[in-house]
């Protein structure tokens, strides 16, 4: 396939898919909470735009619905929920320490290469116009998983999870021009419920552990009380009583 002979819309599909891949890397490198949420919204926007372009090129009307779902969920509702949560948890200006930023990005590049090799056999078999983007969608999934693995903040992990889900949605629309509508609606509803549940969990986690840093959940609460006296000053009564319940 020669890139120069593709139509403008096909070129735009490839460009927007590549930009969505770039936003995955931006999320990996972004330590601050608010920009992370905004980058996630931008990724949703780029994926929705790509889906619309695929719908225009291939003429599959179902994909418009899929794009609309992606747009309302990933650009409007979920970022808004996460934004409101981070404001209410007073962590919107937090920046977490990323342990090895450059190593992490290179690990991301390795994942992209891996997903290209996985997708290569599909690319040879498929005759779809969007077959080259399958590798990108797999890469977005894997990068979301990497984000979940390396981040300690629970909100960042949720964003990684949502980004994985965007990747799966996107994979469906570029490899099979969308799932059946009923499945898409069901998954979208699941995601919506999940994001609300995550919000409830955040409050419970903060109440019982005094922090949303999952690295701290490994410590026993009794050990915390003796080792780090500043924990007690931060979250006085809450840290002790419900923590036992949380572990059980």
């Amino acid at each position, binding site marked *: *396939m*020669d*890139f*120069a002979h593709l139509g*403008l819309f096909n*070129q*735009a599909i*490839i*460009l927007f*898919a*590549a*930009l969505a*891949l*770039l936003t995955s*890397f931006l999320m990996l*490198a972004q330590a601050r909470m608010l920009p992370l949420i905004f980058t996630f919204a931008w990724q949703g926007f780029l994926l929705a735009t790509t889906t619309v372009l695929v719908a225009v090129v291939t003429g599959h009307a179902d994909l418009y619905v899929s794009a609309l779902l992606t747009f309302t969920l990933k650009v409007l509702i979920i970022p808004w929920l996460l934004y409101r949560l981070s404001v209410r948890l007073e962590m919107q200006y937090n920046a977490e320490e990323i342990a090895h*930023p*450059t190593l992490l*990005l*290179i690990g*991301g*590049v390795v994942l*992209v*290469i891996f997903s*290209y090799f996985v997708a290569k056999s599909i690319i040879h078999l498929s005759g779809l116009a969007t077959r*080259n*983007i399958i*590798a*990108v969608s797999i890469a977005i999934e894997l990068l979301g998983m990497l984000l979940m693995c390396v981040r300690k903040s629970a909100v960042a992990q949720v964003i990684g999870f949502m980004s994985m889900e965007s990747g799966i949605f996107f994979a469906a629309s570029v490899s099979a021009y969308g799932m059946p509508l009923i499945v898409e609606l069901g998954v979208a509803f699941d995601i919506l419920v999940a994001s609300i549940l995550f919000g409830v969990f955040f409050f419970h986690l903060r109440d019982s552990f005094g922090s949303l840093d999952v690295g701290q959940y490994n410590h026993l609460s009794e050990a915390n009380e003796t080792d780090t006296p500043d924990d007690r000053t931060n979250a006085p009564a809450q840290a002790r009583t419900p923590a036992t319940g949380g572990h059980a």
Partner: protein
Amino acid sequence: MDRELMFWALAVAQTLAFITAAPLLAGWVQRVKCHLQNRAAPSLWQPYRDLAKLFGKNMVVAHNASWLFRATPYIVFGAMVLACTVVPLAVVQVPTAAIADVIVLVGFFSLARFFTALAGLDIGTAFGGMGASREMMVAALAEPAMLMVVFTFSMTAHTTNLSVATGYILQQGLLLRPSFLFALLALAMVAVAEASRIPVDNPTTHLELTMLHEAMILEYGGRHLALIEWASQIKLMIYAVLLIDFSFPWGIANELSAPALATGVVAAAAKLMLIGVVLVVWETVMAKMRLFRVPQFLGFAFMLAVLGMLTHVMLEGGN
């Protein structure tokens, strides 16, 4: 035969234009920056006056300076002059580009940097050594990214010859290539680091603890300093022209006729002015970053360049 001679003459003229216009670009950047920061702006010709002043001054060289210290300004300036012979500015067909391709261009830059770092160490002052070690750290991170950018472009254009590559982009027309977009972003980040601009280095500061490039050349004065300053202005211009050639070369002269050449010169000037404005805006909104953040910045540039190459293979069919 005449045609061939004409192209060689044009290449020489283009190189001279490069050398003489580089301080003008620096003056333009300075002027726009002053306007943007509500300061009284110096004249556009101020860099020329500075250079003339420095050339007229007597030199003071440390007693323990070796030949290396004296030779470095000439080597640096010579490397930059050679580098700008191979970059198409207003005409695509540069016969000199066949002599040295874009990898050699990167080599010229590292040759200049190598000798500047040695000269910084030569005198044995604390600042020279500090500046040299910092500069080499930045260089070691920027060079792989720069080479990756070069490879991405040359994989698409099937050549490392800058003149042929620019001609290829010109003939392909405007395509929405994601690989080019990523490579251009990476190139811009590398250019910022290599031309010692904010946020990696501040070219105007003489605050001891923050300077990178300035720390190495602190001992130079007079003619030597003029040559080094001029060389760094040329370097900035080379990076700006590289960005233009890879992103938007349209307007550049593709044939030997007076109107085409005139368009080429005007287009090059306009695009350089635009890049100057973009650079100034970028420098105004960014703050200089801590030295230990630089690896992350350049690591991201490297990642972008690799991603550009990967998208070329994955999405653009690899040809």
